[in-house]
């Protein structure tokens, strides 16, 4: 029997300390969330490399990177795909930000963020903006087939910049 259709899950809300993690970003390379202390981090969980909507979403973020960089923010994409798949996907789409493999145990980090779809076996399309202290300041889960865009992320970064250091 097919599992019942799921709406977007409940991602960890603003105010929650972001669970730390270490994931592979490339064969032989890992990235830890804690390594980005002192600057904002954008986590973009997405269902899968290569699927059309994700492709558009990651392609959009690739274009918007200069805007994220204005806030010194680091973007990390996360899905359950393995590192070789990520490597091929990033190369084909010329992505200039890390894609992390939530591969083993499968979806473990996604689950801790409330961003996993157990029935489907892949991550939600969920976004988190984490401040320099490691606290989630904004989160959003989009319907899985809808590109959530970048406007929410930019508003959250703007609010963060306004709250901490007046430029």
């Amino acid at each position, binding site marked *: 029997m097919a599992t019942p259709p799921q709406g977007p899950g409940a991602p960890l809300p603003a105010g929650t300390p972001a669970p730390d993690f270490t994931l592979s970003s490339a064969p032989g390379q890992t990235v830890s969330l804690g390594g980005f202390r002192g600057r904002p981090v954008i986590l973009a969980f997405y269902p899968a490399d290569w699927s059309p909507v994700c492709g558009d979403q990651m392609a959009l973020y690739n*274009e918007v990177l200069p805007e994220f960089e204005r806030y010194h923010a680091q973007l990390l994409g996360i899905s359950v795909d393995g590192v070789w798949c990520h490597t091929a996907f990033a190369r084909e789409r010329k992505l200039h930000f890390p894609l992390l493999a939530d591969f083993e145990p499968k979806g473990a980090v996604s689950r801790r963020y409330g961003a996993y779809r157990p029935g489907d076996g892949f991550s939600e399309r969920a976004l988190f903006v984490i401040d320099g202290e490691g606290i989630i300041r904004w989160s959003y889960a989009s319907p899985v087939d809808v590109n959530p865009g970048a*406007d929410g992320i930019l508003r959250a970064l703007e609010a963060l910049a306004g709250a901490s250091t007046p430029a």
Partner: protein
Amino acid sequence: MSRRATAAALTLPVGERDHAQGPADAPVTLVEYGDYECPHCGRAYPIVKQVRQRLGRRLRFVFRNFPLRESHPHAQHAAEAAEAAGAQGKFWEMHDRLFERQFALDDDYLIEYAGDLGLDAARFRRELDAGTHAPRVREDFRSGVTSGVNGTPTFFINGVRYDESWDLEPLVAALDQAVATR
């Protein structure tokens, strides 16, 4: 089908800075965020022309740049070329030429088009080389991102993102509706 619970809205209102066709006091304004090298925008181009014919003086059409530079290597310079033509009073002529010649957008072609349109080609080339209009293109792009543009083309009707089909009939119907409910 609604793509989002809350419809995204333009963060940068249409104003003096924009390239517009049609009356400033038209009851409906259609804004397109587009990329001259994007095949979907190429398909939308003749549709928008037909839409303008159908709506006539009831429609103001505005085009803003949203070049997807990583996917489309010529998109950024093409956008700057349209702005450079705009600086010489021929934005729409270049806009049309770029969409009609979407397959030929190398710099040499851009300069050729400037010559064809009777522009000062030396000035055009100078501005293209210097990136004179890059900040303006970036401003368009940034306004698109903050307004919820996720790809191209994205349309806004009277400031609200239009997420339905932009084929001719549905788009005309949506614009008619916007006129009627005004």
